[in-house]
């Protein structure tokens, strides 16, 4: 009876939260997969992105659109066949 009335009276947001929390809690294989996903995302965003893949233009102090335009145009012009 209590469970029934609690379900009826739950707000849609609470229902959604419960749906997800129960879903995550009942996972078996999913826990391993989520661990892999989180490790992978951590490697990608906290190691690769920061240490190996910085924004090249920002790294070279080309911050404003004008700086970037000037830099790219000079690169494109310099590299052309004479």
């Amino acid at each position, binding site marked *: 009876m209590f469970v029934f009335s609690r379900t009826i009276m739950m707000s849609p947001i609470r229902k959604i939260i419960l*749906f997800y929390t129960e879903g995550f809690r009942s996972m078996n294989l999913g826990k391993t*997969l989520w661990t892999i996903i989180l490790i992978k995302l951590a490697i*990608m965003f906290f190691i690769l992105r920061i240490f190996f893949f910085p924004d090249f233009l920002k790294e070279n102090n080309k911050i404003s659109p004008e700086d970037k335009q000037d830099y790219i145009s000079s690169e494109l012009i310099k*590299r052309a066949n004479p």
Partner: protein
Amino acid sequence: MNEIIDPSLIDWSRAQFALTAMYHWLFVPLTLGLGLIMALMETAYYVTGDLFWKRTVKFWMKLFGINFAIGVATGIILEFEFGTNWSNYSWFVGDIFGAPLAIEGILAFFMESTFVAVMYFGWNKVSKKFHLASTWLTIIGATLSAWWILVANAWMQYPVGMEFNPDTVRNEMNDFMAVAFSPVAINKFIHTVLSGWVLGAAFVAGISFWFLLKKRETEFAVASLKIAAWFGLTASVLCAIAGDGSAYNVGRVQPMKLAAMEALYEGHTRQGLIALGVVNPDKVAYNDSVPPVLLKLEIPNMLSWLVGRNIQTFVPGIKDIIDGGYPTTHGPALSTAEKIKKGRIAVDALAHYREAVKEGNADRAQLNRNLLKENYPYFGYGYINKPEELIPNVPLNFYAFRVMVGLGSYFILFFALVLIACYKNKWLSGKFFQWVGILTIPLAYIAGEAGWIVAESGRQPWAIQDVLPNSAAISRLGVSSVQTTFFVFVVLFAVLLIAEIRIMLREIKKGPEGEPV
């Protein structure tokens, strides 16, 4: 002027991008193909109410989830590489590349991630109808994501719907529909997604054959095989038809790629298509007299028909494209020397335009802006030093194309035989046939990767066809930093792949959960 970029920087950056893209492509086609098969199986459950289908779909959904988890976000690494290794390119393509990728990101995030959760957590919690809708919406979301990625790729092969702005040094989209629905984009989407469906079918068929080999879950395996065979046969026939459309488009917009795929140096009307052959390693120059292909088996007139739908169509070879003068729909083709001259005019006009703007000389600026616009279709040729630089790797394209087409033909035969076997109750217990089925899984992966090798290495040296070569697209980085990240990726991808295969094999061995219904 002419500050040459170290060629090994280009090679390593390309290798790094190719490694990431090929790794990413191990997961995407299985998501597309297996997802649809799963949705069909769940539809069978919804329609019949038979719990057998629920147990079946839950097994395939588990494998789909493993593939999804390992593959998810691997495409983001490509975007890191754009910003670091290909910064000139990233700036130069502007919103044309950004818009489809942004749409893809939003779609992938909202559609796939929302409905994937319902798909996995929603059994017995939401209605059967809502669950089925979620499964279909997950796969529709994944397919729509693929659409936008392929639109961006197609634009690099056939840049349309844009105008170059010399002030911002960016290509700006002026016709969204031309970009989103170019014939190359449409055909690329159809052909690529169908190849994913073929792979999904081969995957389901191969694993079902494994259960038959182990004499386990026979009813489940045969039911899965029937769906895989129908689906795989339909997809592989349609994929071949779409492949014909791809060849037509390549002949029209990337004739050098077609010539490399065929190792065709001197073209003709009534040009045949080489079915089998060996590229002559002694052919060292595009204009020497050494025959390019040895021991060839040719289908007469076929290439002319593929390219122009008429056997009298002239198909230009590599030498023809470099020398120019062959007939096209716009009159005689320009020679490479003429294109290089126009490209040089375009790059000079960009330099002079920007100088004139800084000087405040409006007349000079306008004159050079017009000159740039007129010659912009050849802008990339301004970076080409000699015609040989325009020739892609001929043996790689020649063999990769034949691997793709050969395996595509094999899949049609394979799925047709599986169908006959299922309905006539023949061969399914034969070990040879079972092993053929299992080994078809890696063949489907090889076919898909070979297709991408043709698509991407065939358009070299261009990052954007005719407009931007790799030598201009690349960032001025140290070669050693690119080498380091290349090997970091080799290790990371290998570890992830081993993890996926181990988890996948473990779950396959467990089989469907619960007792057979």
